């Protein structure tokens, strides 16, 4: 038809867009031009597949395809013309037909294959696992949904788990606290006596099981301290177990023992010791139960000691009665000396905080006595515990051994009394205080003498190990530089409770009372004797001759302390004589006797005419001893002796 035409004609459609309708006012509404694909689809619809192939399938495939009016109509014509122009030798739908043909071939093959497969004789079809993959769009959404679902499920499980975990953590913490409480309770039980009363746990602080008879019940209560806020940070020193201590045992207490020289005003009694000892800086928060309990027990023990001492102070009759005022016991071991034992109890409340702090060093603690008081009360406990012994034979009743023995052995009163000890705590501690005081006073006396008097010297050797009631010191009196030859005075001082026993080197025993003046006087007289002894020793060394020696001279002025001692020594040649008189108070007096011939001023005697009489010793002349050279008495004496001795060279 149109393809046959040889002449090229360019045809242009009048209007690019097809007019759909023309309005009454003359406006044209256009149809949108068909796109290429729409156009093709419209054309394809017109294809008559039955033409050109006789196959029935082709008819089935395109039943609605009417026989195409190849000439086309109207607007389509130009397109067809274009195709023709490019492939002039071919039928314009050739490519479409070719494709359809090949499709048909393949469909036939598929048909054959399917018919073979249906028989399942020569071929079977197996599902291939990859079948799932190819589907694309909908499986993806499905996957998304399923993923979402499973994620939601997982999240739920996780949330539930987390919830359970937090719950169990809190529970755990509570359990841990509970467990900690139990383990703490176990530890508490290992150290303290506990018992359960009703729903409370009570403990025993008292020393009753150790033999104490103090009536204080000494009970503390164990408190479970688990209701703290778990969210907050648990303090480091947190302990699930706490103890409630009776209010009168709170704080800290100690027994203070001191010795004062002068009795204070009676008005001051009992108040001076109510000071507050500066407590060691306590950490914020409550202290551990162990420290709390130990402190409370210490308070209890101090109270018991004080109660026992007060009871004894009232019961014991002494020459000077003991005074018990408030928290202080005052006793007078020696005249003008006061022993005060006081109970210092400082609780943590604010009232006591206000108390003025003690002036340091005002009155010395006697720590030894305070310690000994604790020892004594424990000894006392032990005594009460051991005084009731188990009866032997076993059928016998309980009771003191002394009571069981006294009948069969027919003891008299003295024997019974000897079995039981009656000395109380107070008596013992007063004795110890007396001893300590006497010892310190003796030491002070010796020290002051040693520092006051340089010649002769005093050395004191204290023994390190003492009994509580007795100690000893060795006193040596020497002269400097002459320690080897002057060893005459060695004293052993045994300091007891009431008196000081002096054992002399030669075995003499002198008993001195507690008065320090006695000891001082004794030592002074010993020092004065030492000088005379030293002269005697020196004379031996120098070859001088001792003419007379007396420790206690009956002549001359009377000394207020002891007696003066004197010695007279003669020079080796016999020409000179030195006479020394030394008194503790009057000091030393040294006289030298010259030979008669050296005395110019002697009146000529009518009796002694002969020259031999000139060898007689003449009168004494006193030496101005303080003008002598020499650092001490013995050295001066040595110089004097050597000056008076004839030169040997």
């Amino acid at each position, binding site marked *: 038809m149109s393809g046959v035409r040889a002449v090229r004609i360019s045809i242009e459609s009048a209007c690019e867009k097809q007019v759909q309708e023309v309005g009454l006012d003359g406006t044209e509404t256009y149809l949108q031009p068909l796109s290429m694909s729409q156009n093709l689809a419209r054309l394809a619809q017109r294809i008559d597949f039955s033409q050109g192939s006789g196959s029935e399938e082709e008819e089935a495939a395109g039943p609605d395809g009417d026989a195409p009016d190849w000439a086309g109509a109207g607007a389509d014509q130009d397109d067809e013309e274009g195709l023709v122009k490019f492939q002039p030798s071919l039928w314009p739908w050739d490519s479409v037909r070719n494709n359809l043909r090949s499709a048909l071939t393949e469909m036939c093959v598929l048909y054959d294959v399917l018919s073979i497969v249906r028989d399942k004789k020569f071929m079977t079809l197996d599902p291939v696992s990859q079948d799932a993959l190819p589907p694309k769009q909908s499986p993806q959404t499905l996957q998304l949904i399923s993923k979402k679902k499973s994620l939601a499920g997982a999240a739920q499980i996780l949330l539930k788990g987390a919830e359970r975990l937090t719950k169990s953590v809190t529970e755990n913490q509570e359990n841990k606290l509970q467990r900690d409480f139990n383990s703490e309770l176990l530890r508490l039980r290992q150290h303290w006596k506990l018992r359960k009363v009703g729903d409370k746990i009570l403990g025993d602080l008292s020393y009753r099981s150790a033999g104490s008879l103090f009536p204080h019940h000494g009970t503390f209560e164990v408190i479970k301290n688990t209701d703290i806020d778990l969210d907050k940070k648990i303090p480091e020193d947190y302990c699930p177990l706490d103890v409630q201590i009776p209010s009168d045992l709170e704080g800290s207490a100690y027994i203070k023992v001191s010795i004062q020289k002068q009795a204070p005003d009676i008005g001051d009694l009992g108040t001076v010791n109510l000071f507050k000892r500066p407590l060691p800086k306590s950490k914020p928060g409550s202290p551990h139960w162990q420290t709390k309990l130990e402190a409370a027990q210490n308070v209890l023990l101090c109270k018991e000691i004080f109660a026992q001492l007060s009871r004894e102070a009232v019961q014991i009759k002494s020459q000077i009665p003991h005074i018990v005022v408030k928290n202080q016991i005052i006793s007078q071991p020696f005249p003008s000396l006061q022993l005060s034992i006081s109970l210092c109890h400082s609780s943590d409340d604010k009232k006591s905080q206000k108390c003025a702090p003690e002036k340091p060093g005002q009155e010395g603690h006697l720590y030894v006595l305070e310690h000994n008081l604790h020892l004594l009360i424990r000894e006392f406990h032990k005594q009460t515990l051991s005084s009731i012994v188990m009866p032997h034979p*076993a*059928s016998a009743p*309980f009771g003191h051994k002394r*009571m069981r*023995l006294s009948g069969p052995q027919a003891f008299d009163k003295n024997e019974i009394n000897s079995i039981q000890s009656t000395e109380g705590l107070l008596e013992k501690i007063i004795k110890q205080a007396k001893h300590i005081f006497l010892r310190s006073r003796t030491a002070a006396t010796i020290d002051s003498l040693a520092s006051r008097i340089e010649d002769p010297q005093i050395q004191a050797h204290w023994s390190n190990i003492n009994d509580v009631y007795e100690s000893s010191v060795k006193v040596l009196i020497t002269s400097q530089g002459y320690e080897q030859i002057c060893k005459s005075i060695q004293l052993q001082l045994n300091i007891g409770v009431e008196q000081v026993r002096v054992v002399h080197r030669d075995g003499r025993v002198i008993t001195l009372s507690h008065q320090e003046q006695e000891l001082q006087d004794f030592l002074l007289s010993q020092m004065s004797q030492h000088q005379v002894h030293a002269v005697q020793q020196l004379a031996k060394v120098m070859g001088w001759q001792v003419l007379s020696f007396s420790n206690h001279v009956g002549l001359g002025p009377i000394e207020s302390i002891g007696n003066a001692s004197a010695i007279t020594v003669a020079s080796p040649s016999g020409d000179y004589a030195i006479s020394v008189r030394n008194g503790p108070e009057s000091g030393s007096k040294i006289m030298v006797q010259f030979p008669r011939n050296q005395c110019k001023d002697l009146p000529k005697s009518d009796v002694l005419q002969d020259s031999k009489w000139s060898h007689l010793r003449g009168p004494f002349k006193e030496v101005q001893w303080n003008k002598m050279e020499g650092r001490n008495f013995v050295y001066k004496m040595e110089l004097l002796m050597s000056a008076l001795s004839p030169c040997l060279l």
Partner: protein
Amino acid sequence: MEAPPVTMMPVTGGTINMMEYLLQGSVLDHSLESLIHRLRGLCDNMEPETFLDHEMVFLLKGQQASPFVLRARRSMDRAGAPWHLRYLGQPEMGDKNRHALVRNCVDIATSENLTDFLMEMGFRMDHEFVAKGHLFRKGIMKIVVYKIFRILVPGNTDSTEALSLSYLVELSVVAPAGQDMVSDDMRNFAEQLKPLVHLEKIDPKRLM
């Protein structure tokens, strides 16, 4: 006479009528350890003591039908301890309100020539035995756990033979007559020893 000291009442010349409250039981040898352990925990804090006693029972037969019985006991392991002479009266069971056996008792500590004295008085030794065991104390209560040994040769305490395979457990309190409260304490204490040992008031007449 030595007056029992563990009493709250004044002792006036032995006129107080002392009573012994008694509960008895026994344990087999193999469970002795656990009983001792329990007693150490319950009783007063003292070193556990053992004892070894020799007891002789003397009879004086007079006109009456029942002889007069005295028990002389001495400690074999403690030298210097006095002898112990004891009179025990007829045990009274009492009613249910009283939880312990009660018998009159007189305790005297004596010198060691007691046997000669008793013999001179006309007493005759009926039997003797050796008791060896442990002694505990809780307050006024005395707990004795001991084994009785038969003396093979009379007078020779070295050769002995155990009477049984068990230990006798006695819980006793000596108190003035009428203080039945002590039996409550005893019952409470005995309760704490269960089931190691069951302490009961045992009527000796029923055993005969």
